[in-house]
């Protein structure tokens, strides 16, 4: 398969994830859509690594996975903290994150 096809899948998934971030209001689903966008970047990185025959892109993808895991960790911690304080779980309602 040509590398082009993989990049098209990557672009499609990235656009879908961006649409999800813009339309959904539940922070859990917003985090899931961020995962989609990070994974789209991962496909592109690995496709380019295959294109050059160089495994360094795969290292980059692994680091992206680590960062995504950290982001999930912090994001879910925030969701749990919001839930504990009985604040609305809605990204429109919690624009002010202080306190």
């Amino acid at each position, binding site marked *: *398969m040509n590398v082009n096809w993989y990049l098209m899948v990557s672009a499609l998934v990235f656009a879908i994830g961006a649409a999800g971030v813009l339309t959904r209001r539940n922070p859990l689903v917003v985090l899931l859509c961020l995962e989609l966008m990070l994974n789209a970047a991962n496909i592109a990185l690995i*496709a380019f690594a295959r294109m050059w025959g160089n495994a360094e892109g795969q290292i980059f993808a692994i680091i992206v996975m680590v960062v995504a895991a950290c982001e999930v960790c912090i994001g*879910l911690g925030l969701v749990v903290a919001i839930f504990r304080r009985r604040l609305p779980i809605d990204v429109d309602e919690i624009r002010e994150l202080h306190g």
Partner: protein
Amino acid sequence: MSEVLFFIAGIGAVCGAVGVVMVRNPFYAVLALVFHLLSLAALFLLLQAQFVAAAQVVVYAGAVMVLYVFVVAYVGAAEPPRLRAPVGRGQRAAALLFALALFVELAIAVLGSSLKALDSGGPTVEANFGSPAQIGDLLLTKFLLPFEVASFLLLIAAVGAVVLARRRGGIGEEVEPVAAADYALPPGVGTMREGVGGPSSREPFELGVGGGEPTREGGEGGW
């Protein structure tokens, strides 16, 4: 063969992504994302990234998604009715328009680039391309510093999650003191200890439920 596998996995990945965005229930959205991640792992295998594919399945589709499922179960999957108020129609249309524009732009950027190698399947690579041996070799020699920084990042994230999610008394949030007697069951309620002829559950060393001192989990609620 690889074409067929590519289209199956690619369509699966895109359908999973659409499912994440469209499904109302966050629990099903997580399941759709698991499907998406498994399809992506198949794509990674087609690109000869065996180690990344395995890490994707084990770490992402396994561990991270389990964390999601835990939090969804804790917070409650059903959205309160107030949240069902539709996002403004104009906002949704604008978001779709923006996403479409983003896709077109990315497609132009990819297809219009002068990289000739994009139209090929890439060079033939040796058999150990993307194997754990090669990845480990690169991670511990050339990319040692990013590797260590990533491990520190994980440590900081773990500490941060604990700090964020811990129970604390905020303003206007009185934590009611919990007496030890609240945990003790009345005698004769059929605990396992009584069943074998032991003393009743007023004893401080009851199995499980009747601990003498209030533990932290006691006041949580919701679990």
